[in-house]
């Protein structure tokens, strides 16, 4: 559904995308995970035909985003990070004018609007002015708007930005139901791990490059065993000692020493006994996408 080959983009001297390549299959929920400035928004703008890349190729729904932008626009629904609704109009009025942009009118448009509002749970708010809606509801109106022309692909840019956790989960549920009932392929960009973990597959973008690709489970299982995080006053010294004594490859970040290790619980007792007084706090968890990101880039996502 989406094919990206050796995509490169420069803003003047700054390289925002550097030879990015991936493919999204039909019916997938595909995530682009990375920190702000990692290249997600650039990629989103290129895929949504807002700008042309300085190098490489990309196609959406079988159409080249540069040569055939008009066809791409016909087959893609776009949900922006910022608001694209007219606040002074009602939910219905916003949907209606969006429908007109796609050449829909009359009974067809009315039916599509009903369907979209029903799917996103907006039927009881149809007459409400957008400015009176909560952030979560507004995002749902944005999605309903993007679905009117029955796109094969839905592109969502940081759709959950500014939402509280409950609204975010609610949004994720709606996105999953869209995939199920509307058979739409979804590509979303996010810097929120919880959201990324709900994708079928994802790529990790860092400084314009893909540093890892796979399903959340696959990515996490690349890290064997557990992740142990040690807090200490002198991280460099502790990391050095761990390397020496246990033959580990610890990573140091934000005053913490991280270690990937099998049987983490045993390592903890050994480490605490080996360096009495040096360790201030210890925690152990199963690998998350954050750990994958730290391992691949040495930097944090959020």
């Amino acid at each position, binding site marked *: 559904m989406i094919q990206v080959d050796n995509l490169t983009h420069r803003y003047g001297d700054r390289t925002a995308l550097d030879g990015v390549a991936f493919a999204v299959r039909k019916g997938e929920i595909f995530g682009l995970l990375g920190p702000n400035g990692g290249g997600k928004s650039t990629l989103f703008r290129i895929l949504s035909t807002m700008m042309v890349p300085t190098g490489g190729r990309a196609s959406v729904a079988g159409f080249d985003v540069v040569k055939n932008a008009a066809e791409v626009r016909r087959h893609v629904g776009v949900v922006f990070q910022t608001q*694209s609704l007219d606040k002074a109009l009602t939910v219905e009025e916003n949907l209606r004018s969006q429908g007109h942009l796609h050449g829909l009118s009359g009974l067809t448009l009315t039916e599509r609007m009903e369907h979209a509002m029903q799917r996103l749970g907006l039927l009881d708010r149809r007459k409400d002015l957008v400015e009176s809606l909560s952030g979560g509801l507004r995002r749902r109106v944005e999605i309903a708007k993007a679905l009117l022309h029955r796109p094969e692909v839905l592109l969502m840019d940081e759709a959950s930005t500014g939402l509280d956790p409950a609204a975010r989960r609610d949004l994720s549920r709606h996105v999953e139901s869209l995939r199920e009932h509307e058979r739409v392929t979804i590509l979303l960009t996010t810097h929120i791990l919880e959201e990324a973990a709900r994708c079928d597959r994802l790529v990790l973008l860092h400084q314009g490059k893909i540093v890892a690709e796979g399903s959340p489970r696959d990515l996490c299982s690349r890290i064997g065993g557990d992740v142990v995080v040690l807090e200490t006053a002198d991280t460099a010294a502790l990391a050095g000692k761990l390397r020496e004594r246990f033959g580990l490859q610890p990573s140091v970040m934000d005053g913490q020493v991280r270690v990937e290790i099998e049987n983490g619980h045993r390592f903890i007792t050994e480490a605490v006994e080996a360096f009495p007084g040096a360790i201030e706090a210890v925690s152990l968890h199963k690998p998350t996408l954050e750990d994958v990101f730290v391992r691949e880039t040495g930097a944090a996502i959020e």
Partner: protein
Amino acid sequence: MGVVASPLVFWLLIGYGSNDLARFYSGALVLTVMFSAIFSTISIIEDRREGFLLSMLVSPAPRTSMVLGKILGAATLAWIQGLTFLAFAPLAGVSIGMLELIPVAASIFLISFTLTGLGFVIAWRMNSTAGFHGIMNLLLVPMWMVSGSLFPMATAHGWVKAIMWVNPLTYSISLLNHTLELPNAFPGAMPSLFVTAAFGLVLLLASGMMAAQKATRSAA
């Protein structure tokens, strides 16, 4: 209504102060239209970042129709503001009959259309509204000053006079002076009409081309 207020104040102060309301009337009317056109097109900058314009940019609706819609809408608004200013015409000693109203209204529309096109061309290239304000103060307002709005071409000197000759707004003011039968109607009616219309058309084409252009920088 706010758009009419400040040109009205300017006009009354300058007009009563120099005891010549008629001379500055067309200039004040054009300023009203200009303010309205600017305020309507300046919204493009924000709407493109956060607003309805975003959805338009990724919809299959042709960019040219988006441009035409925006310019016609904003021009109509500016036109209405300009027509409102006609209510003060009697103060300038101008009385407009029903039949005379047609060419006057048509001229005001043409000028509204032209200035909206100018606003669009500037706004489309801008990243911030602050930049637009800079252009307004350094280009648009001076352009208005040397258009015959404050002093007629006949009494102008040197290089300023040369600027007046190439300033499209000079022809807009002259066009209004012709249709309102006010003094200082120079250049002639036909050249004034032609230049104003041609300027508007060029700006419309430029707007359409700019909006349809594929760019390696995002439109939003």
